[in-house]
């Protein structure tokens, strides 16, 4: 059963890694706006302004 000597700590470390990742994501506010996170992925905020489709023009909004 010598295998347990390193497998059990390994399992615990993995679990702790997951826990710290969760606590970090919580602290950095990733659970504050769940609906926003779902739709933000659709916005092209990585493109330069002129390459963006003109969807951000204010006139478009009022339907």
């Amino acid at each position, binding site marked *: 059963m010598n295998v347990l000597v390193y497998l*059990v700590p390994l399992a615990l470390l993995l679990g702790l890694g997951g826990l710290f990742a*969760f606590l970090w994501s*919580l602290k950095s506010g990733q659970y504050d706006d769940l*609906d926003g996170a779902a739709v933000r992925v659709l*916005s092209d905020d990585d493109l330069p302004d002129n390459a963006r489709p003109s969807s951000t023009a204010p006139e478009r*909004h009022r339907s």
Partner: protein
Amino acid sequence: MSEAIDYSIFVGTSEDGLAQMSLAIDGIDCAACIGEIENGVKALPGVVRARLNYSTHRLTVAWSEGTSPDRVVGQLEALGYRAHPFAGRAEESEARHARWLLRCLGVAGFAAMNIMLLSVSVWSGNVTDITPETRDFFHWISALIALPAAAYAGQPFFQSAVRAIRSGRLNMDVPITIGVTLALGMSVVETAMSQPHAYFDSAIMLLFFLLAGRYLDHEARRRTRATAGNIAALRGEMAHRIGADGVPVLVPVQALQPGDTILIHPGERVAADGVVASGLSAVDESLVTGETLPRALKAGDHVYAGSLNGEGALHLTVTAGGENTLVDDVQRLLDGALAEKGAYVRLADRVARLYAPMVHLTALVSAIGWLLAGAGLHDAVMIAVAVLIITCPCALALAVPAVQVTATGRLFRAGLLINAGDMLERLAAVDTVVFDKTGTLTLPEPALALPRGADPDMVALAGRLALSSRHPLAGVIAARAKGPALERVTEMSGQGIEAIIDGRRARLGSLSFCDAIAPSDLPADASLIAFRHGEKVLVMGVAQALRPDAREVVAELKARGLDVRILSGDRPAAVAPVAEALGIVAAEAGLKPADKIAALDALKAAGRRVLMVGDGLNDAPALAAATVSLSPASGAAVTQAHADAVFLGRRLWPVLAAVDGARTAARLMRQNLAIAVGYNIIAVPLAIAGFVTPLVAALAMSGSSILVTVNALRAARPGRKEEAVGDDGATGEAGALTEVAA
């Protein structure tokens, strides 16, 4: 607007030393709005950060210099969104609490998973060939994980249990705390004595399930409150405060202090309670008293917040600050009504009061029983621990909150914001519905009533003339305007306005001013306005209009066996036609706040459980006195604070949805409690008999919790009855109602 706006009370400092402000934003309806708003605000000079929370419709802006709060608001307005600064200190602490619960949940989840990993090995090893050394090793590691995790993740329960015991009560958290502590303690002792069974997994799993329920419960309420906060902020209540130099500055009402002098323009809503310092006018106090006829004012008279100013400008000395604008006797009535309401005991608390002592007694009795039967002290205590774990109100604690969360979420989508957690239970038991008239059965704003055969061109022309008037009734007519406001309009104080249109004189105002006679086919309670253009005369009425679906909702409520009544502060002449139109027989008019409470008390004395729906300041005590209360979002702020739920929109439909949703929820709650109790009836004798191993405990606990949760999810679906109403299409209205729900 030329007048300066002073938003300084909303501006705070961010962590990195920038000026920061939160705004509630109205008009967000698509994902593209996020980029539009954030980029639009970031384009202002000096703005460092702009982050929109799409769930709560709040924008946080931080700037270094060069930008003022009113420029941010102005920019948002230019983009097409209404925005209002926001100071949500109470919500900040709630958000912190939610994050803390989530942290506890994360820790409990981590611990539960890792301990279960070890426990499954032990369980399978116990029936095969695990060596005692390996088992003890696994148990010690479990203890190493479980003890710190429970100490951290159990805090919400431990703290609440300590608070309950200090105040001499028992709540669900007391048996939870005792159960978890005993289970962990005994497991450590077992492990030290190299015994085969330890309950580390059960104890941690228990905490995990309970924390999940508690977090969901908290989140649902927080979301409702955030929306309610937005509504309050977006009313954007501002006041023109006269500064020391005599110049009026627009400030948020929260910034008003007693002794300040404020200016009330004609047609404006009064921002705070006060005494008239100078000026002559009449105020419409329908939001305060329910009375729709204006009251004349002179210097020295009291004015209440929420009243609508008539045609004269007023200088007001503020007597109560923005947060405390309640009339004294209303406050007194309110305190009395609230004290009485405290007598209601939540279903879960009633069960807990009965359940907690029973759990402890059963555990104690089984331990003593086994001792008497000749078992060793060790075996007897282990059985007592097993009984405690099995009876720990895991399913019971989830039974009610899980239903509440799903039902609240469904009602939220139907346009209902729920203030009180136990509102659903109380609402389900209601047998009488009492409506206020003004602003509740009728729309908050008056509507134009035209005589038969009115010329649309005349109405449109009257509308253009009305654009130049500040009289409160003029706004209703101005909405019909086609074209821009007229030029060279003269206002005759107290009579009306006059202009020259197409070379002929046009007048809008009182009947005598326009030399007109009242037609007979306008509603009896309408305020009349005449319009004369040359020889042509048109007399229009401005009257309270019923909410578009009021008739259908009242009929549906009656169809559900509820007794529908009206208690109004308005004149009998104004109440009678409404009652008749809705088919309500029991309608009382001209009631003061104290009379409304007396009427409710009489109903309650007759054994009725009353749902009160009202919007005015005069309804606030009655709302607090009723079994359960609803208020429209257009109601007075104080009234909303005392309502159990607030409904949005122009329709009355959410009232019906609330009643149906509450009935479904109450049924599911009772089912869930029955499931939880039924599970105990099976499991507890097994535990007392000593058959419950940690494996059985783990299975039973998760099994019953999942069953209860799945049953609770049914509250999110419309009930079978509701679907049937929508499907058979027997009444067109019922179909329309269901459409609104979707």
